[in-house]
């Protein structure tokens, strides 16, 4: 049996750990730069604050109802997530961290003796006691069915927060109540194509012949179908696959129109992305940049994108800056008020297995000691920059309502009276 442990309104729950005064108040958390709502406590959901809604659209109404708002504090969420995942790893020999607030657990073996439901309740109460994060736990014979169980808990707001789908009858009932769009791996586009086939619920999909789905749709959907019927196709991946790409993108605090400011901001993104790349011990050979204006304004939507393939895989910030600074002027339009930009590094190769270049003199002196030193200085809080970087002159990140770093900063420890 497989359990899916899912933290309830994770970011909002993190904000509440050290703030007992927020226990029953609506809490929302905004995306980087305070753009959109990315997490809502159940009280905020009850005020019809939708996921992903731009903050400026609901701000007035929400605050008037006494709602509390936070900018995102990923330092805190990351540390709490680390604690939750560590507890889960103590409770099962096989766990797969699926996202910052979800993990799959192998229960077979452990649960044989005490039963899945009891095991689920033990996990739930341990996480809650140790980390103060409320979780729900869906349990089923496959990952996809564990997801269905988790959806059922959410939909019916089951007070036990644990649901086991293990017999034919309970699985059939749950599948009939699960709209196809809520099935793991089915997006809105796929749901529309399935609607043509009269597939509206998970049950409808599970009744179709797998070969037909494989032919007409994909192997992936065929696997989903088999999993809905209790046939395990997806294993718990307890070894983390290496990342395939790194993206750094932000909305700006203010609109940006001139090229030199845009330049500085994007160079900052490049530096951050390259730093992440080095921390993963990877090199990459593809660099992409995008710049755009706001969706929500009256002017025409402008989107610029460009991609460059390096002749050799690199992890040197200066290599990336060189190509980015060549691409940027080609995309820039002087009449556009830019509000968001991003940099993506992809086509990775492990830095220890990269071949040497044939003509090293063509290649910038691969000075990895310099990059290592820069990363170290930045890590220990002595920021150093390359000259073209933004270097704090223009901070694109707006996070006005960020909470303290309660668990990672000596100056931010929670106070007790």
């Amino acid at each position, binding site marked *: 049996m497989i359990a899916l442990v899912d933290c309830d309104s994770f970011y909002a729950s993190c904000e509440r750990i050290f703030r*007992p005064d927020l226990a029953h108040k609506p809490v929302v958390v905004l995306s980087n730069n305070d753009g959109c709502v990315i997490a809502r406590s159940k009280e905020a959901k009850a005020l019809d604050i939708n996921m992903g809604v731009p903050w400026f659209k609901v701000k007035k109404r929400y605050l008037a109802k006494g709602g509390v708002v936070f900018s995102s504090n990923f330092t805190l969420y990351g540390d709490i997530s*680390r604690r939750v995942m*560590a507890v889960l790893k103590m409770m099962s020999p096989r766990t797969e961290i699926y996202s910052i607030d979800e993990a799959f657990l192998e229960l077979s073996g452990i649960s044989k003796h005490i039963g899945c439901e009891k095991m689920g309740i033990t996990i739930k109460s341990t996480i809650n006691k140790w980390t103060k994060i409320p979780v729900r736990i869906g349990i089923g014979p496959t990952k996809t069915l564990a997801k269905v169980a988790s959806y059922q808990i959410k939909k019916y707001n089951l007070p036990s927060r644990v649901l086991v789908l293990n017999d034919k009858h309970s699985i059939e009932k749950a599948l009939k109540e699960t709209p196809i769009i809520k099935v793991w791996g089915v997006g809105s586009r796929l749901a529309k194509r399935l609607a043509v086939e009269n597939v509206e619920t998970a049950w409808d999909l599970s009744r179709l012949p797998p070969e037909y789905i494989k032919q007409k749709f994909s192997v992936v959907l065929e696997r989903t179908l088999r999993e809905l019927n209790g046939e395990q196709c997806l294993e718990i991946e307890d070894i983390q696959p290496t990342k395939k790409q790194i993206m750094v993108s932000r909305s700006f605090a203010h609109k940006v129109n001139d090229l030199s400011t845009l330049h500085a901001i994007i160079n900052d993104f490049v530096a951050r992305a390259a730093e992440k790349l080095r921390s993963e011990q990877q090199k990459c050979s593809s660099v992409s940049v995008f710049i755009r204006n706001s969706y929500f304004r009256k002017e025409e939507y402008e989107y610029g994108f460009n991609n460059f393939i390096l002749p050799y895989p690199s992890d040197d910030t200066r290599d990336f800056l060189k190509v980015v600074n060549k691409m940027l002027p080609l995309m820039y339009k002087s009449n556009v008020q830019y509000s968001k930009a991003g940099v993506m590094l992809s086509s990775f190769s492990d830095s220890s297995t990269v071949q040497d270049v044939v003509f090293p003199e063509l290649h910038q002196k691969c000075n990895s000691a310099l990059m290592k030193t820069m990363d170290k200085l930045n890590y220990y809080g002595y920021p150093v920059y390359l000259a073209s970087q933004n270097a704090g002159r223009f901070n694109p990140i707006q996070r006005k309502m960020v909470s303290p770093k309660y668990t990672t900063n000596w100056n931010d420890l929670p106070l*007790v*009276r």
Partner: protein
Amino acid sequence: MKLKYLGTMLTDDYPPFEIPYFQDMVAAGFPSPASDFMENPIDLNQYLVKNGVATFLFRVSGTSMIEALIDDGSLLLVDCSMQAIHNSIVVAKIHGDLVCRRLCLRPKYCLIAENKEYQPIYLDPDMEFEIMGVVTAVIHQFA
């Protein structure tokens, strides 16, 4: 270029000669007489923290617990995995506040301050109250 086959060489006649290879460098000076007796340095985390994932740090504000040697500005280590019992010093959420008090289960459930100027807080069932964790240590820095 022409190649000529001369026959097969028998390697078995010459068994490999193994030369031991040490990866560590050899120091030319006198070896440290302590090297065989080295132990890990004393680690305060190991001493103070039993269960790291469930331990949170708090800073004390005020003197409500002064007689339990918990002063204004002290650092508290709070283990949320431990079960609070009668007389445990705990961090609790009450009336929307975080407080540090001694938990008393007899004769009545209450939170007691270690300072005569503070009144005990009596706990009744319909009160919103939660014990966050048990205070396992206090650190007060003098210099």
